[in-house]
């Protein structure tokens, strides 16, 4: 039995479901294949992001942040609480509810946009056909004019620490602990490692983060990264840089109660024992069983599906987007790529602006950035002005008792065009987003300076940082006097 569609999308994660819904909106007959099943063996949509990534991690981050606030910050406000406790299973249950609500939401959106969904693993069998194999082994063939591969990515495993999803876990397992581990090891001080480490550190775990690289958050502006390192250390995260994990040993008998990690750092060989170990060293594109090599879809040297600026593969009818292709492995990048492919199929000239992909680390304070940082501009020989505004000078932040961090805006020295925005602080992602919009319109720092911002808001810090880059911020001293 062969069903025919205009478009078949493999994967219903952010890239996949955006592509599928947009295709449906544009009038294409669309199918979306999803192999993910939840604990109850039901097919759920939304991919990594909804099920074991963005959403669940943010749910736990918010719960654990409220816990910390109640435990440490309420006192300052004059709020008296007696012992604050965390019911981990309840926290996990709430997270599951949020995920459930959103995955059924996506299911609803897909059907609302007339997208046929298929449960099973999709495999591209020819430039016009996709085979769907369901968990029972039954295969169905779909014919497609266009195929969009959005198969996503999976956590990278490293040989010294094989995942058992019990004591040694990846990000998925880290979202399912039923109690706060006393000693938590995290391999990888990247976004995921810091976020998950934060969750459990806040709830009482003794957290050690082992990072193989010498530098902390190398992609982040140096000033912001330094401030982040200081703040996280103050929060109790012990971040060890230049620590390369060489092996691990489980112990504690059948219950596998702990793991001892061997690593080398500048002082030599070290050992550390943890009750739980999270491996968060990165993710790799998932192309297993996606197509036969004879099909001719090219992969790049890192295993991503090779695509051009519009996500077209080497085969005319096949596109790929999201984590399975090059570029930052971010849900929003995948989403916009999915939209771009759908719109291009309809003849519209959509193009993702890869220059302005924003990034966020959802710790608290939040870290967010877009565009170029100072180091990149120095390396490129571009003259720039910088404006930094600390939240310590923000009325709103002080009123909220949440004033760590700063907003940094970098603008071209000659034309004043905003080249980058880097923030660590409360609502960093939402504040930075305003600058992303401005940068899409080639705005100058002066444009932000001439725009009225509500008072008192956190957003004002963006306004003041822009003024600072021009040498005339009001709420902080200006070092260099500039007209």
């Amino acid at each position, binding site marked *: 039995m062969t069903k025919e569609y205009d478009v078949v999308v493999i994967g219903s994660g952010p890239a996949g479901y955006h592509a599928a819904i947009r295709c449906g909106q544009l009038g294409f007959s669309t199918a979306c294949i999803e192999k993910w099943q939840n604990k109850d063996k039901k097919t759920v949509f939304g991919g990594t992001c909804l099920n074991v990534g963005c959403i669940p991690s943010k749910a736990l981050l918010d719960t654990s942040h409220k816990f910390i606030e109640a435990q440490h910050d309420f006192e300052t406000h004059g709020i008296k609480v007696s012992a604050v406790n965390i019911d981990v299973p309840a926290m996990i249950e709430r997270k599951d509810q949020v995920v459930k609500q959103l995955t059924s939401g996506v299911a609803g959106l897909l059907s609302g946009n007339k997208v046929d969904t298929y449960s099973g693993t999709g495999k591209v069998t020819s430039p016009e056909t996709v085979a769907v194999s369901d968990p029972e082994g039954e295969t169905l063939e779909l014919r497609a004019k266009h195929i969009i591969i959005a198969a996503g990515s999976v956590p990278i495993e490293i040989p010294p620490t094989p995942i058992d999803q019990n004591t040694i876990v990846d990000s998925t397992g880290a979202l399912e602990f039923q109690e706060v581990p006393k000693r938590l090891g995290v391999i990888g001080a990247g976004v995921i490692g810091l976020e998950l480490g934060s969750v459990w550190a806040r709830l009482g775990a003794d957290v050690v983060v082992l990072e193989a690289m010498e530098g902390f958050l190398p992609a982040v502006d140096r000033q912001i990264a330094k401030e982040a390192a200081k703040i996280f250390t103050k929060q109790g995260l012990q971040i060890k840089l230049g620590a390369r994990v060489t092996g691990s040993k489980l112990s504690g008998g059948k219950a596998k109660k702990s793991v001892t990690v061997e690593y080398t750092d500048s002082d030599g060989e070290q050992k550390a024992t943890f009750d739980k170990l999270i491996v968060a060293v990165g993710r790799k594109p998932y192309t297993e069983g996606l197509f036969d090599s004879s099909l001719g879809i090219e992969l790049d040297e890192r295993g991503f599906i090779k695509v051009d600026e519009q996500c077209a593969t080497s085969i005319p009818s096949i596109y790929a987007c999201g984590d399975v292709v090059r570029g930052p492995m971010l849900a929003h990048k995948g989403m916009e790529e999915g939209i771009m492919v759908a719109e291009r199929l309809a*003849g519209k000239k959509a193009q993702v602006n890869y220059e302005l992909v924003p990034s966020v680390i959802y710790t608290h304070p939040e870290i967010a950035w877009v565009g170029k940082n100072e180091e990149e501009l120095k390396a490129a020989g571009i003259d720039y002005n910088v404006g930094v505004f600390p939240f310590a000078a923000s009325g709103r932040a002080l009123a909220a008792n949440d004033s760590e961090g700063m907003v940094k805006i970098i603008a071209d020295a000659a034309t004043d065009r905003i080249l980058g925005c880097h923030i660590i602080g409360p609502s960093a992602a939402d504040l930075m987003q305003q600058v992303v919009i401005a940068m899409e319109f080639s705005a100058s720092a002066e444009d932000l300076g*001439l725009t009225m911002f509500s008072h008192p808001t956190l957003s004002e810090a963006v306004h003041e940082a822009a003024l600072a880059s021009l040498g005339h911020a009001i709420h902080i001293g200006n070092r260099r006097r500039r007209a």
Partner: protein
Amino acid sequence: MTTEIKAPQLPESVPDGTIATWYKNVGEKVARDDLLVDIETDKVVIEVVAPDDGVLAEILKVSGETITSNEAIAKFEVGTEEGVSGSPSAQVKAVSNETVSAPTASESAALSPAARKLIEENSLAVNEISGTGKDGRITKEDVVNHLSAQSSTTPKSNEGGPAQEVSISSEGRIEERVPMSRLRAKVAERLLTATQTTAMLTTFNEVNMQPVMDIRAKYKEEFEKAHDGVRLGFMSFFVRASIEALKRFPAVNASIDGNDIVYHGYQDIGVAVSSPRGLVVPVLRNADNMGLAGIEKEIRNFGEKARDGKLAIEEMTGGTFTISNGGVFGSLLSTPILNPPQTAILGMHKIQERPMAVSGEVKVLPMMYLALSYDHRMIDGKEAVQFLVTIKDLLEDPTRLILEI
């Protein structure tokens, strides 16, 4: 489907135009009614917009090139990507060349705050700056680049603005060499033509403005109330007096066309109005049909339009007689230059109190010198003098205007 974008049909008195600034590049996607290019003529700047959604396929005439009416200036690929193509029709809007230093409200909307500020601070013309922002918006960066291009010593031909050269002479004194803008060059040419091809001379007289001033003082408020807030100025009196005089001396209301003299059976009075970019002369059509209020209102409109740079070509062509008022700038006496093909022009001047002899007594009266420059090939000395005396008489006794005597 590829079509040609043609230059618009230029008005009769405008022989050709120059491509000023292209706002879109070859290969750029444009939407219907997007501004493609500015064409500069002697009088106005004409905007050419995209006839449909599509792509600018080829530019046939680049910035600085001369074009004639309906000449092809570009090739245009019509059609959105859905394959729908409409029937192309080049649309043309005429915009006065007298652009102002501050961007108009509609132009401001597309400028970022910093760009707008910089443009105002440097008295730039918005239409001379090409926008590289989203949808062709002008960003601060564009203005900054425009300014640095203007001040650099190497002339840039694609900006549309005049190339300037600053040099230091051998004695160490600074010279700045700026090529004439097209408008100024054309004005220079016409002035030269007027003085070289006409036998131009000027006759003078003076008029006691007290009677008119008395009327204004007495009826000012009532006039404003009755006529929608239009104020009673001096110009309307002068225009009406001129019309009356022109009826009596048709030669003054005539034009020379080749070897013919054309006597016009109507009076189209050109009123010189100053705008931030210079003098413009919009024309009161069939002024005889206008009362004082109508004339004042129309002049007020012209003033506003000139200030906003929105005078149309049709509003500035033609005219059988011109009135110029140097008095607003303080001129006591002057010799206005003819506005070809007209044969006469009336110059008004400053009203200055002077002691005058009236019936053997000295009285201080508000006096204005009048000047009439005329083409002696067409108009006799006697006619010119009597024409001017008529105007004087009509103004000194406005009742004559009603009685037509």
